[in-house]
């Protein structure tokens, strides 16, 4: 019991101390750019917990999820194809290396040109950024599958869909999930950027509007909201990972032995 209390204290101590410090230090701040924390929290409640939640925050999140889902499906499909064929891989490697190395934000102007500033553009931007980490990690995962399992499948005549599902996807799933985790953090960045660059609604757009209009407490509350969203999405992804890769982490622990 005392051990648990100690852990809670350790985990919550510093964040609470920092928040308290921010609260006290900014309590009678006269600086225009650094308003008191109490004011920021008030602005947070009045700004985001009303109609904006439905009009700006939710559409942004839906676009993020749509782009992420499309990138995952496309990345895994292409990755399995490229990873299974050495010839295809050798041919496409330089092209993929180049496409991956393009910083995704510079694609925003190109997609604006092609798709305007609507939802399509934003989803395309998110897909174009999320695709590469998933694709390249899938290729690595498919390549590195266990030879014994491969031979076993061949001996038992497991082919086609069953082989894809039980051998190829299963054995590359740790890498796929790693790629998805990287893709998610890139996706959040691109969601915000695509709205900041050109949009008429959305989270990034609203925050930039506040900054341009010098609505400083509202701007700070937007930064706070983005931070909370980042943390919430990463926690949600960790839950997903524990579910999908529970077998893998258990296997690793068992292999390392009881230590």
């Amino acid at each position: 019991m005392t051990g648990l209390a100690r852990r809670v204290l350790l985990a919550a101590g510093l964040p609470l101390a920092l928040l308290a410090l921010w609260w006290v230090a900014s309590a009678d701040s006269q600086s225009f750019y650094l308003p008191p924390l109490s004011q920021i929290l008030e602005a947070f409640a009045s700004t985001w917990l009303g109609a904006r939640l439905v009009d700006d925050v939710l559409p942004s999140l839906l676009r993020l999820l749509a782009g992420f889902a499309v990138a995952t499906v496309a990345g895994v499909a292409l990755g399995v194809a490229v990873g299974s064929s050495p010839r295809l891989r050798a041919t496409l490697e330089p092209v993929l290396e180049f496409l991956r190395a393009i910083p995704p934000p510079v694609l925003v102007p190109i997609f604006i040109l092609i798709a305007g500033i609507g939802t399509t553009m934003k989803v395309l931007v998110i897909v174009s950024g999320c695709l590469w980490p998933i694709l390249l990690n899938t290729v690595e995962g498919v390549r590195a599958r266990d030879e014994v399992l491969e031979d076993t499948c061949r001996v038992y005549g497991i082919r086609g869909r069953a082989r894809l599902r039980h051998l190829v996807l299963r054995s590359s799933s740790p890498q796929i999930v790693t790629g998805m985790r990287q893709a998610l953090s890139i996706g959040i960045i691109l969601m915000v950027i695509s709205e900041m660059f050109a949009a008429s609604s959305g989270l990034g757009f609203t925050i930039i509007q506040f900054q341009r209009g010098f609505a400083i407490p509202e701007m700070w509350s937007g930064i706070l909201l983005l931070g909370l969203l980042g943390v919430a999405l990463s926690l949600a992804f960790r839950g997903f990972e524990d579910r999908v890769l529970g077998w893998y982490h258990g296997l690793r622990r068992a292999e390392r032995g009881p230590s």
Partner: protein
Amino acid sequence: MRTGRRRWWQGAAGLAGFLLLLELIPRAGVVPDRYLPPTSRVAGALAGELGRPAFWAALGDTLAGWAIGLALAVGGGVALGLLLGSVPALRAATSSTIEFLRPIPSVALIPLAVLLFGTDLRSKLLLVVYASFWQVLIQVLHGVQDVDPVAMDTAHSYGLGRWARIRHVVWPTALPYAVTGFRLAAAVALVLAVTAELIIGSPGLGKEIAVAQTSGAVPAMYALVVVAGLLGVGVNLAARALERRVLAWHPSTRREAAA
């Protein structure tokens, strides 16, 4: 060696095919060429850019922001990582705070950077440092945790002081992790440097791309995107070369070279 050369040829063929495809698609009218100019026009625009002093100045600005930001992030990440990693009490007290701060998307800081520093180099640095610092810090923390307890006990019993222990036991263990962190951070730093230029308008490649887009200079825009991609490839290759060089003594590299 032979297969290496054949792979090289296949890669070159893949790249040539990709460029040819991008030439033919707009020429055949599948996509209007004001959206996707053929490769030859992009190459022409690229040659034009290479002759413009403003282009080289922009490239220099981007690289300067990238390098300074990366150096600050790596220095800070390694120093703080070693400190937090070597003092268990500090590590336990800070881990929840780190877990919270890390997923905050760095683009959330854009409005703050604009207010505080305008289009100055410092606002680019703020984004670059924030994004790449965590990559290094997390890796170094993992590395310090990975120190062999037997080696540490040996160092203790030989009476090595705190600094000698860090220098001769902790540092060699943490170095491969730190270098991995550096490689990840180098790529992220470039993305954020270009983002700052694109969204905030700090001088650099990103700003040139935004200007080309708003003025309708489509081939020039594509040429600049290609330059950004090549820059990304260069950063990746350089980081990997550095990794091999710094870790030439490490068993994993030696085994690779022997095989």
